[in-house]
């Protein structure tokens, strides 16, 4: 059963998070879309995104 959500991603840096684990971060230079079960966290800059992940105790991808 496909329960993934269609998400619109704003321009900036986004992290895809599963169970407090970040599977990856990437830059969306012109925004983007996702079809995912994951939580997507978006910040204007990479530094802000990493700070947010750190504050939420979300591990960064290896």
């Amino acid at each position, binding site marked *: 059963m496909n329960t*993934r959500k269609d998400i619109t991603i704003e321009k900036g840096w986004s992290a*895809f998070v599963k169970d407090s684990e970040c*599977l990856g971060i*990437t*830059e969306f230079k012109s*925004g983007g*879309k*996702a*079809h995912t*079960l994951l939580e997507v966290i978006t910040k204007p800059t990479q530094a802000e995104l990493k700070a947010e992940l750190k504050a939420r105790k979300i591990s960064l991808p290896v």
Partner: protein
Amino acid sequence: MAVRLKFANDLNIFGSSRGAGGFLSTPVLIGGGYPAYGTVLSTAYGVDYEDGSSQVYSGILASWFYSKTCDVDTKADGSGGSFVDFGSASNIQFKANGTFVATSSEDIAGNAQEVPFGSSNYYNSGSYSDRNEVHNGSGNIDTVGTGTFTLFLNGTVIVFAYNEETYVPSPNGTAYANGQYSNYVWDGNGGYGTAGDGSYYSNGTEVDSGLRYTTSNEQTEVPPASGVYYDNGKFNQDTYLWNGSGGYTGGGVAGNPQGSFFPFGQFITDNDCPTIGVSGVGLGYFWDGNNGWYIASYP
């Protein structure tokens, strides 16, 4: 050492006159009537020479035995007692070859034979009962096979021989041990043969994880309702399972599908990628690491 005493005339230590004087041979009585210290009371011939350095160990009896004999005197201690004077023993010699020591109370395996022929591996083919230990004439003990030798019974296992094998897959696959095997066994007449043992691996036991093969890749439709499917990283495998009677069957690997979804960021396709924002150039689908995807521009 014997003691001889000379007495003056008319001296009578026994209480009566003997007339002329002379030498008294043993026993010599003094004081209260005891033989003087050192007086030889008797001599024994060919008895154990009880010297601590002249002993030999019997494995059968698990104890030490004297390996020499001697002639030795028993002497008076001067107070009515006596002692055996091994310090002055004579005719000391090793016990003769063949002098009996002990008979075994247990069977002792022996008479080794080469099994299989040409292997240079030797195994005892039977056992001796009532085997003896004897002195060897030079201070040691030999075990001699003078007892009754009995061959091991028919079917007595000698040693593992070989595994029974099944080719998986047949006929050109690899030979695998199927759980049954054969041992070399004695035939009861001094020869040997083989006999089966063991049991086939139980039904459902995987033959070898190295034989697994992929039957299909798991796929995900990207985007939904597009009718286009892409491998998502997981896959299904079959394998070979023992059937409990030495053969095998095919079966799915437990936990199918195997593997992991493609990692975050791995490119999927740029086919039919929708335009996002002001530019639709260079956009593509990428895996999110959890079987989902996102659309982003190429790095």
